[in-house]
């Protein structure tokens, strides 16, 4: 007890003395294996709660501050993500996966719970609609069907008044959303230096969205330090993994083209090497790169706007033997690592120099880069075939020598109807394949079944993954048939299912040894595409026509049978219509005949002989049908 107090004392002292600056920014660079580079941008601004309440803003963005105040949001987390983090080769995720989102857009927030459920829903809809306008994203499509209320997966990061009572967590995802430049521009506008100075000047839509993996996050939370007024802090991060070679394509010629033969580097030791055959030689060592080549521009100026911000702007995590050069203004110096950490080299941007660039030459390093193993590997697939039913299959692999407790969260769309009685969680050790799989009993399970067109499924499981084993989680589901108007324009593409979110809980301090981690970490699977039965969209009309025809056929014959009178064929009287038609035909024929006759008469210059002939012809058909001027004239003449 005493020890804990002693340990806690310096921490409080430090926080009391070192007030956090109103704004600070940081860029962390780390080369990854196979020619990739991780770049993590972090921008932190804060404002005192009293200034926020009276809506006076300095570095905290006003546009966001207003939205938060209007919607009664206590803590906000917003994520825009694209691509996949390759944990097999890149190791553990940056920032423990806490500033990462599932593919598309993800948002969760703690809202004031005053006024009951309808009031909270009203606030939530006002929040997502306003954010949708601010970030040019389709966040307004997050409605009741895409919103869940997770229980175990998230915990507030901020320090809230009253111990976090009186607020409610809502979580929404948009896996279909394509994150692009129009989301980055408003993101940069929130920064004090707006991408014009400091490290934010490196953020360019062409490079950020060309990355293999990219995630943009905005986190707003209240932070309190002892002896100081509580502050509202906004943390904006952009994490990207760039393919170094791809990023260094010249800007004026961005289209990848085959290299000229002379420039190819071939492995000449191969037996089949010839003038027309080339086996590309493996690149040796670390690639050469520089900030200006990768991002297309060096860092412009600096963004030291807040008092008391003395921290480093850029840190570079490379091997100790790697040569690093910094070009600041006109001077060129070699960057060496600081005392405490041998792998990290830090640099503070100069306030006077217009441009700062970091460049690293190609170098062969013997020492293998240190890489931390991720806490867990996870993957998720849809199984099955056909348009009626399918199955979900998640594989969680624990590579560590200690068991891990995780929270597994899935929020499924309503048209995917899972059968919870088919839920199976089986574990088998990775070391030996012979051992039979043993079922794992979830410690806790929260399940909210879906309501058609109103609510999606929420499934949360608290599991323990045994040491060095793989856990398979499977369940079956039905695919619902949507209404005609509910299909999107690209219905045959399939429907996106949001990624599963896995929270790895920190192990209890007394239970396991050999693990210093006290913070929980997050990871997300990729999003899935669910093919639903898609109709042919002219179907309604076809159905209408077909059924109408069948009905008409049946109706017509039955009706005729009921009302028709059956007589002998000879007895059938001439119908009035037929008589009338015949009369009209005769009349027309008479007119035509009369005209013909008159023309002939005109040609001969004689009297009405032709007319008589024409009348005689008509008279054969039927006496009563004489009509027309010709016939009448003929009769008169006779």
């Amino acid at each position, binding site marked *: 007890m005493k020890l804990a107090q002693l340990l806690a004392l310096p921490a409080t002292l430090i926080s009391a003395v070192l007030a956090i600056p109103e704004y600070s920014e940081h860029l962390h660079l780390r080369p990854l294996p196979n020619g990739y580079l991780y770049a993590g941008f972090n921008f932190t601004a804060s404002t005192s709660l009293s200034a926020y309440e*009276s*809506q*006076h*803003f*300095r*570095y905290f*963005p*006003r*546009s966001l*501050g*207003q*939205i938060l105040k*209007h919607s009664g949001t206590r803590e906000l987390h917003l994520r825009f993500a694209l691509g996949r983090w390759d944990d097999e080769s890149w190791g553990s995720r940056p920032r423990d996966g806490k500033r990462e989102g599932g593919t598309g857009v993800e948002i969760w927030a703690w809202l004031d719970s005053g006024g009951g459920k309808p009031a909270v829903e009203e606030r939530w809809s*006002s929040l997502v609609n306003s954010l949708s306008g*601010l970030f040019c994203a389709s966040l307004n499509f997050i409605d009741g069907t895409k919103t869940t209320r997770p229980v175990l997966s998230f915990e507030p990061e901020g320090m809230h008044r009253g111990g976090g009572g009186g607020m409610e967590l809502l979580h929404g995802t948009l896996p279909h959303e394509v994150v692009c430049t129009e989301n980055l521009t408003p993101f940069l*506008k*929130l920064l*004090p230096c*707006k991408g*014009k*100075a400091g490290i934010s000047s490196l953020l360019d839509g062409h490079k950020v969205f060309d990355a293999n993996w990219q995630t943009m996050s905005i986190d707003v939370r209240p932070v309190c330090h002892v002896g100081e007024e509580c502050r509202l802090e906004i943390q904006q991060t952009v994490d990207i993994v760039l393919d170094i070679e791809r990023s260094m394509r010249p800007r004026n010629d961005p289209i990848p083209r085959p290299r000229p033969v002379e420039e190819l580097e071939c492995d000449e030791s191969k037996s089949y090497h010839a003038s027309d055959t080339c086996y590309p030689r493996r690149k040796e060592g670390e690639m050469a790169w520089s900030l200006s080549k990768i991002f297309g521009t060096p860092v412009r100026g600096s*963004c*030291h*706007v807040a*008092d008391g911000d003395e921290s480093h702007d850029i840190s570079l995590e490379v091997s100790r033997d790697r040569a690093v050069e910094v070009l600041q203004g006109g001077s060129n110096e070699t960057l060496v690592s600081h005392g405490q950490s041998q792998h990290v080299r830090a640099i503070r941007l100069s306030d006077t120099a217009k441009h700062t660039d970091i460049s690293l030459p190609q170098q062969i390093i013997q020492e293998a880069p240190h890489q931390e193993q991720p806490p867990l590997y996870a993957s998720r697939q849809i199984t099955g075939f056909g348009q009626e039913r399918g199955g979900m299959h998640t594989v969680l692999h624990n590579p560590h020598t200690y068991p891990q407790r995780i929270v597994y969260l899935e929020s499924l769309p309503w048209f995917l109807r899972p059968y919870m009685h088919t839920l199976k969680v089986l574990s088998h050790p990775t070391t030996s394949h012979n051992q039979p799989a043993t079922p794992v009993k979830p410690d806790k399970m929260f399940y909210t079944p879906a309501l058609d067109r109103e609510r999606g499924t929420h499934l949360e499981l608290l599991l323990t993954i045994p040491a060095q084993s793989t856990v398979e989680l499977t369940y079956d589901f039905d695919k619902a048939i949507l209404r005609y108007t509910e299909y999107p324009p690209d219905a045959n593409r399939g429907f996106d299912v949001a990624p599963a979110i896995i929270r790895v809980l920190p192990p209890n301090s007394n239970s396991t040894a050999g693990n210093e981690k006290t913070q929980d970490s997050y990871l997300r699977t990729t999003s899935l595409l669910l093919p639903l039965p898609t109709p042919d969209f002219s179907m309604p*009309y076809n159905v*209408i*026509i077909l059924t*109408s*025809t069948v*009905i*008409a*056929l049946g*109706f*017509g014959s039955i*009706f*005729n049978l*009921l*009302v028709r*009178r059956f*007589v*002998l064929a*000879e*007895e*059938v*009287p*001439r119908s*009035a219509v037929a*008589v*009338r038609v015949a*009369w009209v035909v005769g*009349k027309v024929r008479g007119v035509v005949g009369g005209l013909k006759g008159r023309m002939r008469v005109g040609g001969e210059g004689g009297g009405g002989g032709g007319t008589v002939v024409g009348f005689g012809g008509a008279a054969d058909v039927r*006496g*009563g*049908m*004489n*009509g*027309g*001027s010709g016939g*009448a004239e003929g009769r008169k003449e006779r």
Partner: protein
Amino acid sequence: MDPTSTEDGGGVSAVEGTELPASGNAKATPPTESARTLLTRRTIVFSFWAIVLGLGLPHWLWTTSTYRASLPLSTMNDWAEGKACDLRFAFPIRVRVPGWTREEMVELSGSLSALLDHDGSDGLLDFTIHVGNADEEPILPAHGDPALTVVLHAAGSPDTNGVTSRLEPGESALHLGSGLRQAGEIADQIREITSPQQEALAYLLSGTPFAVTEHGVLRATQNTWSEASLDARNTRAFKPSTTYHLSFSLFVPGNEPSAWAIEDALAAYMTPLLDALAGVSNFTVTTQVQLHASFSPSIAGPTFDEASGKWKLRKEDLSGFVNAAEWPLSPSIGEGSTINFVLYVPAPGHSPLVVADTGGTGWLVPQWGGVAILNLDEPTTPRKSTTDTDRTTLSAANLDEIMLTFADQLTALIGLPSSPAGSLALRIAALQRERATALLLSTASTLGALSRLVHKLPNIPIPDTVATSVGTSLRHLDHACQDLRAGRYSNTDTNLGALGNAQAASEASEKAFFEPSMVGQVYFPDEHKVAVYVPLLGPMGVPLVLAGVKELLGWYRGMREKVKRT
């Protein structure tokens, strides 16, 4: 040739022709039907038709009809045409003469009233004169608050001597010197104060159905200058709203200054004005600081003028000065309009920055907000000795002049009349009157538009909420009209007042007009209807109709034969 005769002849022969073969040829005729089978068949056809007409048709009508709540269309049209309300504005005046007896005051007010009524007949304001107590203590207002109190200092106190008139900024009172004791002189003074108001109201009413011809007389006498100034005032001002969001922004091209003492400056200059305007609208205030603000590429940017040693901004560039694409000036959330106030502090290299022609540093963007440029002192002056925070922070003293500019721009942007210049209270009262009128007029035209829309689109569904909103709107309009005539302008505990009622009416009418379920009318074109109905109605309708016609004809012939026989 005579076409009628030939046609007649043809018709006769045709009738003969039908009967000829039946009798002439030896063709067999079907046996005559028994009356029972005939009856059965007719019953069958009749029951089919009965089902179609009695069950099918109502069902079809019921399933395809749209719900249309009944709206008081005639009342709405009355308002739109200006028939529902004869707009007059009561203008109660209280006369108080310290030192006079009541009889003397009554006599004065009688003659004043006669004078004002004489020329008030073609005006919009209805003057009524009440006699106030001679004592200083206020009397209980029996007819609502007086719009104007005239205090005649007949006794002649030291500061109100002679023929002077004086207005108090905080109250709606006109103090007259002892030299202006004649009724005619007092009436002239009152007219001088109220004529801008009359003109403004006539301007508002002109061109609307509420403008009565007698107001036209007044309008004709108006000079063009005042019309132009009213035009300018009207185009500058925001549309009346219950809430305005004021957003004060500091834009800096570089890093500094990055803070400003805006809270102190607002408390000193804005809060008193906003408190005074509280009777007209609610105001919310937000402020922000934006660094690295660059000009839009569409403007030429400032140029350095050697002669004056100043950076000059061309007049054409003023409209594009605010870089709307990059400067985060998003409107505030919630109901109401946002008024933007932008303070721009040019970089030391570009200072002092002024507008080329006038040399001014501030301008107003109509219906958007105001812009001011603050040129800080030369960096060579004692500034170097000051501390770091002085360089990064604008003090309240720096902001004094700017805040006065912003306050001036705010009054113009909300449409506060500039006269009578002496009294803010009178100006605000005039604004209330104009606001109420403008809202009433816009509500009336909204209701008219809604009524026309309902009339023009017979397929549009009208939910009950629209009917309720229209009802609310009409009720408040009636109240507003009565309040205007009775002189209850501002709201009290018991009554919303003319302005409050007009606002409520306007909100309700907008809600009715922009009802989402009416805006999003489902597009169901006629081709689709044909595609749905023809396959069913064609094959089913033809036998039904033919059988019906045949039976009807048969029945008709039978009847005719019966008549012939008898």
